[in-house]
């Protein structure tokens, strides 16, 4: 039915500042920045990976009243908007150190988890994202593994 999730969106409170942060500090790429008149269509993606774009939307009229926009701004700055997205990396600890040196705020340091190593960051507005280094693939049953199993448990071979 579907092919992929090509875009998802988060609320940012200032689009220029969002570009400075997500492109300037985090190293993402602005994949679209179009003035449609009624809105500025602004997206970022991982450089070289066009599979997923994140739309950086500013809450406000005409898509919502000033009153509703104020409620969203309140929630964003309280950190109540939930996960923005997870970025995957080959080296979480190094990425953490590099971004921390650039002044990116972190919720936690890189931590070993059953699924890999990950840490969380906060954007300037209050959105949270995570950086994850997936664990080396588990469960790949190579001939070598089968041979080892056979040695350890002869009854499980074959």
């Amino acid at each position: 039915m579907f092919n992929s999730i090509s875009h998802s969106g988060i609320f940012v409170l200032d689009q220029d500042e969002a570009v400075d942060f997500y492109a300037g500090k985090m190293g993402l790429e602005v994949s679209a920045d179009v003035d449609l008149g009624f809105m500025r269509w602004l997206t970022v993606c991982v450089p070289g990976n066009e599979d997923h774009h994140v739309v950086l939307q500013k809450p406000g009229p005409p898509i919502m009243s000033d009153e509703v926009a104020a409620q969203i701004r309140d929630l964003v700055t309280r950190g109540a908007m939930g996960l923005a997205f997870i970025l995957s990396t080959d080296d979480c600890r190094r990425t953490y150190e590099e971004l921390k040196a650039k002044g990116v705020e972190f919720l936690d340091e890189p931590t070993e988890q059953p699924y890999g190593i990950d840490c969380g960051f906060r954007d300037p507005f209050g959105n949270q994202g995570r950086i994850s280094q997936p664990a080396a693939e588990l469960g790949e049953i190579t001939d070598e593994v089968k041979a080892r199993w056979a040695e350890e448990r002869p009854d499980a071979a074959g």
Partner: protein
Amino acid sequence: MVTAAIPLASNELRNRWMLRARDAIDRDYAQPLDIPALARIALVSEGHFIRTFRTTFGETPHRYLQRRRVERAMALLRNTDRSVTDICLAVGFASLGTFSRTFRDIVGQPPSAFRQLAPPPDPVPGCFAMAWSRPSSFGEAAVRRSA
């Protein structure tokens, strides 16, 4: 950091500074964090910090810190075979008495009993495990005790 470039209303700036202090609790829970240190992060006086944190997040910073530490202790009790005393110190409590009392108060059972009954964790990202497995302030302990 919040920079002057972002046009935020005063309540939004206040939220953001409070969130910065709350992130410090999540990040540095194992350190000897105290209210004066957190208030400095939020750029306000101690009394003002406690009141404003409570208004912003619905509980005092002290309680939030306790829940963060107890949530970490729950994970270590489930996933490791480290001793209760070791875990108590690892998550930032200074005394076993305070740890056991706080743990029982929040979780509804003492650490050793929790360890025996705890199911294995699910493989979800740390932020979700942290946020959703954190024991709530809102009465589950009492419910669990009576169950």
